[in-house]
């Protein structure tokens, strides 16, 4: 993402100001290097010392004899002049000494001030930086307070919305049920069970077992795939297997010691099950559920069944499953993932008896609408990546182009080659 133009302008301004600052600091550094007088006038100390030595005029002559008298008389004649000259010299040297001393002190002071000034200017940056960081931290803290409040509110609203949607679904279902009951009462129509029975009979094809053998896989393969679901029914006996087919899952349950019973509309499949000693009822799955006492089942399982049911029968099945399960019981429904193109084209359309393509959201909605809780969907049977669209090699392509192409390939893969099946898992 490109930088905001205002921020780029601020960065440029900062660069400019920092250059000006560095230039001024360098200039000040240059001014701060004051030469001490001893460097500029190296002869000065000697001359001052000499001046301090020679300022006093010589005293009266220290001689003996006649020359002494002559010289003394002459000295006395000029003594007042010498005296004044000495006083003048003394005063002048004292002033000069004082001036030099003061000048040295001032020079030292000036050097100290300049040095402190340089240090001060050098310290401006850390101070500004520290202030800037505190400001940034305060701004971030304030932003995070706002963000937190917003985020909490969003999470809260999301949770409320979920509750409201579940409630709305429930109300819609109740409303439809009420309409159906009213219509039935008004028209003296046959009970819904008749429709359910008709739907289930769609699977009563003599060749269906052979069809399953071909397209759903061999018994051993199917057992292996279904074994994944066993853990979901731990401690939830008895389990009803709706549309149990050749009884692979019932066998697995039996081997794990979980009591179970199957219902199957296909007489040939029922015969296969019974040959294997499995407890299977031949008949309509909705009727079978209706016959179970309320709360008597721990689990309801149906693999590759719900897509064979017309919507009304499917809803009746879910309603009866909910009634027959005890609280905490579990329903597990495996079906074709019609959200995946390959799942729809290669799996769903292959079977003539498929009646209702079920999007995962639709099945979840129907389950929740019947009062199931903890409704979740897990994807199954992923497509081998080797059979999917392959990413383009990044060598020789601009990185952005390669990223876009690969991102598009990933999106297409998700749409075309998404998992071919899914399983809905929910609690009573």
């Amino acid at each position, binding site marked *: *993402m490109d930088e905001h133009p205002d921020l780029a302008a601020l960065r440029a301004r900062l660069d400019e100001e920092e250059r000006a600052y560095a230039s001024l600091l360098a200039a000040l550094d240059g001014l701060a290097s004051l030469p001490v007088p001893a460097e500029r006038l190296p002869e000065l100390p000697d001359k001052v010392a000499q001046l301090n030595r020679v300022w006093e005029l010589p005293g009266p002559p220290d001689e003996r004899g006649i020359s002494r008298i002559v010289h003394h008389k002459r000295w006395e004649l000029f003594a007042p002049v010498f005296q004044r000259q000495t006083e003048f010299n003394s005063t002048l040297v004292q002033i000069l000494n004082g001036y030099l001393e003061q000048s040295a002190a001032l020079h030292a002071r000036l050097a100290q001030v300049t040095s402190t000034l340089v240090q001060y200017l050098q310290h401006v940056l850390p101070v500004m930086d520290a202030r800037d960081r505190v400001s940034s931290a305060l701004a*971030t803290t304030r932003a995070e307070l706002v963000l937190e409040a917003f985020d909490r509110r969003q999470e809260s609203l999301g949770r409320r919305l979920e509750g409201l949607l579940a409630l709305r679904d429930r109300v819609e279902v109740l409303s439809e049920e009420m309409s159906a009951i009213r219509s039935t009462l008004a028209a003296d129509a046959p009970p819904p069970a008749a429709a359910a029975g008709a739907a289930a009979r769609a699977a009563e094809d003599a060749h269906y077992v052979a069809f399953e053998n071909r397209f759903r896989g061999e018994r051993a393969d199917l057992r292996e795939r279904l074994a994944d679901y066993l853990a979901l029914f731990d*401690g939830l006996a008895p389990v009803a297997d709706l549309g149990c087919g050749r009884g692979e899952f019932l066998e697995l349950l039996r081997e794990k010691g979980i009591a179970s019973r199957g219902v199957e509309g296909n007489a040939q499949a029922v015969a296969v099950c019974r040959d294997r000693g499995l407890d299977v009822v031949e008949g309509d799955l909705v009727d079978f559920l209706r016959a179970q006492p309320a709360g008597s089942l721990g689990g309801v399982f149906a693999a590759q069944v719900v897509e064979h049911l017309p919507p009304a029968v499917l809803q009746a099945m879910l309603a009866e499953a909910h009634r027959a399960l005890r609280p905490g019981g579990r329903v597990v429904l495996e079906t074709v993932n019609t959200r995946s193109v390959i799942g729809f084209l290669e799996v769903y359309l292959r079977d003539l008896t498929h009646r209702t393509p079920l999007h995962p959201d639709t099945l979840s909605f129907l389950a929740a609408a019947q009062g199931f809780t903890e409704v979740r969907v897990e994807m199954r049977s*992923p497509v*081998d990546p080797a059979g999917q669209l392959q990413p383009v090699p990044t060598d020789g392509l601009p990185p952005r182009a390669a*990223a876009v192409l690969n*991102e598009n390939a990933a999106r297409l893969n998700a749409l075309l080659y*998404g998992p071919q099946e899914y399983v809905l898992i929910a609690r009573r």
Partner: protein
Amino acid sequence: MKRLAFFSPIPPAATGIADYAVDVLSLLAPRYAIDVFHDEAAPERERVPAGVGVFRHPEFAARQAAHPYDLAVYQMGNGPAHDFVYEPLVRVPGLLVLHDLVLHHARGRMFLEAPEARAYARDPGSAAARAAAADVIDRYQAEVAHSYPGQGRRLVEAHLATVGDLLPYAYPLFRLPVEASRAVAVHNAFMAEAIASEVPGAEVVRVPMPMPPLPVEAAAVEALRKRYAIAEDDFVVGTFGLVTREKRVDTVARAVARAASLHPGVRLLVVGPVADRGALDARLASLGLASGAIVTGRVPFPELAAHIELADAVAHLRYPTARETSAALLRVLAQGRPTIMGDLEHLADVPHDAVIRADVADEEGETTRAILKLAASPALRARLGAAARTFVERAHAPALTAEAYASAIERAIARPRPTARGWPAHWAALART
């Protein structure tokens, strides 16, 4: 018997995942030959089930070369105890058990704690500091950009400069580890959906976190009541786990203080390691809880159940959250404690009749009201406790975990090795080694 290489923190690592790993190992050990690879200087080998090999992680390469494992299982969380997992995860793709959806701050720290990156963060105006840190920051930026195309630089600069910690929660940065794995196991539906949504085609499986109830001795509880001077009519509100900002102990304390003004017997119990005890004490004192609050610090695991039993109610709040399934929450539910918890999306699996949910928009007020409600109704407490226990027994039975892990392991073994998809150069290079 299939052979597994199991990369995980193990005790005494300062993370609950180390305890989790021990539990899972005991469930898998009868089915698989397992070698654990860890990063502990002094691992507590006695806590690892017999028959499981225990090795420092650098030993993996030689063992893998000599006798390749059928699958590597990686326990990944967002604490520093998991830093060592990243490298083998890329080299030898396996089953990634993702405990936290949000990995960003932990992964970012691995780059930003480098000395050169720290120097740059201290002096972001310095071109020399920027140049010295370029390599490490560029690698971090490449990882961020892979997950969030076009935003790498902006996010890294913001992360470098910010003193807050919410930003990484908005950009969880789990894509690369997921893409590099054959399959991913998670503990809740929220994480499963988030991963499936961001990484289409990822093989995501749910495994329940195992949580068997712990035995509690009445005498031990009584001894603790005496130790902490808990009176018969006190109403103790407990909070359990490592005390961090995310645990919102401050909010719980304010709720307790508000409730105590209406119900004087309400007391706060804080069980778990406290990083800054002085700050906590000062905060409790400012709320008038100095004399009534009980702060135990870390308690030995054998004493934990008795401490949980001290609580008449538990407050379990989390914000921000990495969307993890909390072992601390499941533990108190398994022990049948009536619990108030934040109403967070990833905890939707917890049945409505097993807890009191506090709307996160007003956690303090909702927690206060829930405390008062629970204090006034022993029947409600009993009902919640029983439902909580039933939920954990049903949904988090160790047998379920064992089955789910076995299924996830088989699915991961069956999946092909993932291929690099526009990965950052350093990541792709690791995958080639």
